[in-house]
C-alpha cells in the first residue's frame, strides 16, 4: 500500500523525502572526501583500499554466520565472534606446534588445508554444542531470554580463550606467501591478501547454492519462515537448526584461520570486537541476506581501513569504533532492512 502510493508520487518526477535527500547528501560528502584523498595520495588510497577489502572479506565470513543464524532463529548469536576467536587460537596452536614457519610450499599448502578442515570442524562442533546446550531449551521463551543467554555464552567462551592463551595477544608465525600478485599505481597486491579474498567469494557462492538449491537449504528456508508449518511438512526442525549452526560454526572456523594467518596474532577479546563489527556488517547488508552480509562487510572493512589510514580530514583510528557503531545505529533507525535485505517486523 505504502509503496504503491510512493510510486505514484515518484512517477511524475524524482521527489524524494527529506530523509533520503539527507542520506544522499551524506553519501555525496563521503564520496567527495574519498575523492580528495585519492587525488592527494593515490598510492596510499590504493593500499588502504586493498587492506579494507581483505579485512572486509574476513568480516564477511563471520557476518555470514550471524546472518544464517539470525535468518533461521531470529537470534543474534553473540557467541559467534568468540567461536571465531577460538578457531583462530586453535590455528595459532597448530601453526606453532607443527612448525609451519619454515616449511616449503609443497608441504605447507596441504598442511594449511588440513588446518582449515580441523578449524572448521572444531568451530562447527562448538557452535552446535552451544545451540544444543544453551539455545534449544529457550526456543519458546520470551525473545530476551536467548539473547541474554547468547551474551552469557560469549563471556564464557572469551574466558575459555583467556584460560587457554592468557590475556596477552598470541602471535602466529607468518606463513602465507607475501609475494606480489599484481600492482596498482605502484602498490603491490600480495598473495596473503588475495588468498583471503579468493576464499570468501567461493564460500559465498557455495552457501547461496546450498540455501537456494539443495533439499537441506529448502528445509532451512522453510524453518526460517514458519517453524511449526515446517515441522508439519515433515521437516526435522531441530536437525535443520543444528545444521545451520554447524555451517555457521564452520564459516567462523575458516574465518578464524584466515584472520590468524593474515593478521598474525589472536587475543581472547578479539572475537567479541570482530563479532560486533561483523554483526554491524550483517545489519548493514540486511540481516538474513547472504550476499548482503558480504557486501556490508566489505563496506565496513573499507570504512575502517580508510578511516584508519587516510590523511585528509579523517577522524583517525581513535574513532573507528564509534564510526562503525554510528553506522549500525543509523542503519537500524532509518533503514532496518539494510542495503539489500527485506523489511523485518522488528524494524517496522
Amino acid at each position, binding site marked *: 500500500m*505504502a509503496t504503491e502510493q510512493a510510486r505514484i508520487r515518484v512517477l511524475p518526477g524524482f521527489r524524494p523525502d527529506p530523509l533520503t535527500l539527507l542520506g544522499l547528501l551524506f553519501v555525496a560528502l563521503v564520496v567527495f572526501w574519498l575523492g580528495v584523498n585519492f587525488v592527494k595520495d593515490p598510492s596510499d588510497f590504493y593500499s588502504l583500499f586493498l587492506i579494507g577489502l581483505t579485512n572486509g572479506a574476513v568480516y564477511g565470513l563471520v557476518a555470514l554466520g550471524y546472518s544464517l543464524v539470525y535468518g533461521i532463529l531470529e537470534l543474534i548469536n553473540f557467541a559467534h565472534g568468540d567461536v571465531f576467536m577460538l578457531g583462530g587460537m586453535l590455528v595459532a596452536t597448530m601453526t606453532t606446534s607443527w612448525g609451519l614457519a619454515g616449511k616449503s610450499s609443497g608441504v605447507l599448502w596441504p598442511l594449511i588445508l588440513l588446518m582449515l578442515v580441523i578449524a572448521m570442524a572444531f568451530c562447527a562442533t562448538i557452535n552446535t554444542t552451544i545451540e544444543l546446550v544453551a539455545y534449544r531449551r529457550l526456543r519458546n521463551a520470551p*525473545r*530476551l*531470554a536467548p539473547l541474554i543467554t547468547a551474551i552469557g555464552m560469549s*563471556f564464557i567462551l572469551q*574466558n575459555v580463550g583467556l584460560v587457554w592463551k592468557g*590475556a596477552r595477544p598470541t602471535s602466529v608465525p607468518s606463513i602465507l606467501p607475501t609475494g606480489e600478485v599484481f600492482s596498482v599505481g605502484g602498490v603491490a597486491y600480495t598473495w596473503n591478501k588475495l588468498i583471503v579474498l579468493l576464499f570468501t567469494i567461493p564460500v559465498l557462492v557455495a552457501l547461496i547454492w546450498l540455501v537456494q538449491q539443495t533439499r537441506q537449504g529448502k528445509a532451512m528456508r522453510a524453518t526460517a519462515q514458519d517453524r511449526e508449518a515446517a515441522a508439519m511438512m515433515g521437516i526435522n526442525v531441530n536437525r535443520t537448526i543444528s545444521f545451520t549452526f554447524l555451517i555457521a560454526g564452520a564459516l567462523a572456523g575458516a574465518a578464524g584461520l584466515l584472520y590468524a594467518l593474515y593478521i598474525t596474532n589472536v587475543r581472547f577479546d578479539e572475537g567479541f570486537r570482530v563479532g560486533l563489527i561483523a554483526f554491524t556488517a550483517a545489519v548493514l547488508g540486511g540481516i538474513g541476506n547472504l550476499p548482503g552480509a558480504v557486501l556490508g562487510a566489505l563496506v565496513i572493512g573499507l570504512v575502517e581501513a580508510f578511516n584508519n589510514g587516510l590523511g585528509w580530514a579523517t577522524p583517525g583510528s581513535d574513532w573507528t569504533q*564509534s564510526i562503525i557503531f554510528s553506522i549500525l545505529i543509523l542503519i*537500524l533507525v532509518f533503514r532496518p532492512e539494510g542495503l539489500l535485505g527485506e523489511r523485518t*517486523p522488528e524494524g517496522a
Partner: protein
Amino acid sequence: MFGNLLAGIRARWPEFEHETRRRAVRGGIVAGAAFLILALTGAASLSLVVTFAVALALYVPAWNRLPRGRWVVVIGVILIAVLYPFYQANMFEMPLFGGFPSVDTGVTMLIFIMMALGLNIVVGYAGLLDLGYVAFYAMGAYTAAWFASQHFSGKNVHFGSVGVNPAAPGIHISIWPVLFIAAIFTGVVGVIIGFPTLRLRGDYLAIVTLGFGEIMPQVARNGDNLFGQNLTNGPQGINPIDPPGFGDTLNNATGLPADYLTFNTTFLGHDVSSVELFFWTALVLVLFTVFCSVRLRDSRIGRAWIAIREDETAAAAMGVPLMRTKTWAYAAGAFFGGIAGAYYASFKSGTFPDDFFFNISIFILCMVILGGMGNIWGVILGGGFLAYLNQEGLGNIGGWLNRHFSGASTSSDKWFTIWPHDIDVPLYQFGIFGVILVLVMLFKPEGLIPSERRKAEFREGVADEPFYDVQH
C-alpha cells in the same frame, strides 16, 4: 487508629498463625543446617547466633499477613543496613566467602544496587533490553566531574562547594545540586537517545543501545580534543572531584557534616569515618530510588510499562501511547543511572574512561536478571551480591580455593592439590558472570526472587511475537 490496627490484627491472626507455623518448619530446617555448617567450620561466635536470630525473626513470623506488617521487614532491613558500619568489624568469618564486606565495598554495592534499580525500570518493568546502560553511568560521572572539579580551569565558579580553596580555578558546585543536574542531564540524554530508537522492537533496540554503550567510552577516551575542546581529559580521566559535604553554615545550624573527607567524630563509642558517611548517603539514595521505583511501578505509567512488556500490540490497542511510555521508561532509568554515576565519581574522587566499557553494562544487567527482573527485593539482592563478588568476594573465594587446593599453597589449611599454581579468580570475573547469566536463563529465568507476574510470563510465554509479518 490503634483500635483499627488491633482489630485488623485480630481478624488476620489465624491466617498469620497458620503461615508462621509453615515457615517455622521450613526456616528452622534451613537455618539449622546453615548454622551447623557455619559453626562447624569455625565461625561459631556470638555474632553468628545474633545473625540467625535476626534473620529468623524477620522471616518466620508471616509479617506480610498482618495489616501494615510488610513494614516490619522493610524497617528491619533498613535498620540492619543503617547499623552495618557499627557491627561489621565484629562479624563472623564465612567459609569460602571470608569476612563480611567492608564498609568501603558496601558503598560500591549500594551504588551498583542503585544502578541496577534504574536498569530494572527499563528492563524489568518496560521489558526493553538495554545493553548500553553504562552510557548513563558515564554521563553522570562526567557531569559530576565537570561541575565539581578543577577541570574547566578557565572558569572560576563556586557554589556551596566544600573542601575547596575559594580561589581554586574550575567549576565547583556542591555535590547535592550536581547529583540533581546529573540526573536531569542523563534523563534528557536518555530521551534523546530513546526517541529515534524506541520505534524498534526487541533485539534491534538492544543492538542500538549496545552501539551507544560502545561509542560512549570511546568518546570519553578521545574527548580531550573534541573540536578543540577538552571535555573529558582523555585517558587520564578527571580527578580529583570534590567531596560531598554540607558546608560550615549548615554544619553549625543542623550538625550535618561539613566535609565528608575531613569528617571525624565518635558516636556511641564508634569512630565514624568518612567512608561511613558515604555509606549512609548512598543508603539514602538507594532508599530514594526504591521509593521512586515502587511509586512508579504502581502508577499509571508503571502499569503502562508492564502492559507494553507483556504484549506491545495489545497495549497499543488499549490506547497506551507506545513511544511516549517507552521514552519515559528510558528517561527514568537514565535518571537513576545518572545520580549513581555522579555519586560514584564523587566517592572515588575521579572518573576514568576505562570504567565504562561494555562489560559493565552486562554486569549491571546480570544483577537485574540474577535477582529477578521487575522485583525490587530481587534486584537489590542481585545487585548487592554481584557488586560484592566483583569488589572483594571473588578475591576472597579465590584466596580460599587456592589455600585449600593449589599446589603452590603453603598454608596449614591445605587439603589436597587440584591445580598446580594459584588461580587468579577475579581475572575470570566476566566468565563467571557469563555462567551466572546462562544458568539463570536456563533454569530460573525469572530470577532468584521473581515477581509473580514476571514468573507467569516466563512460564507461560508471552505474545511478544507480532501477529503478522510485514512482507513488503
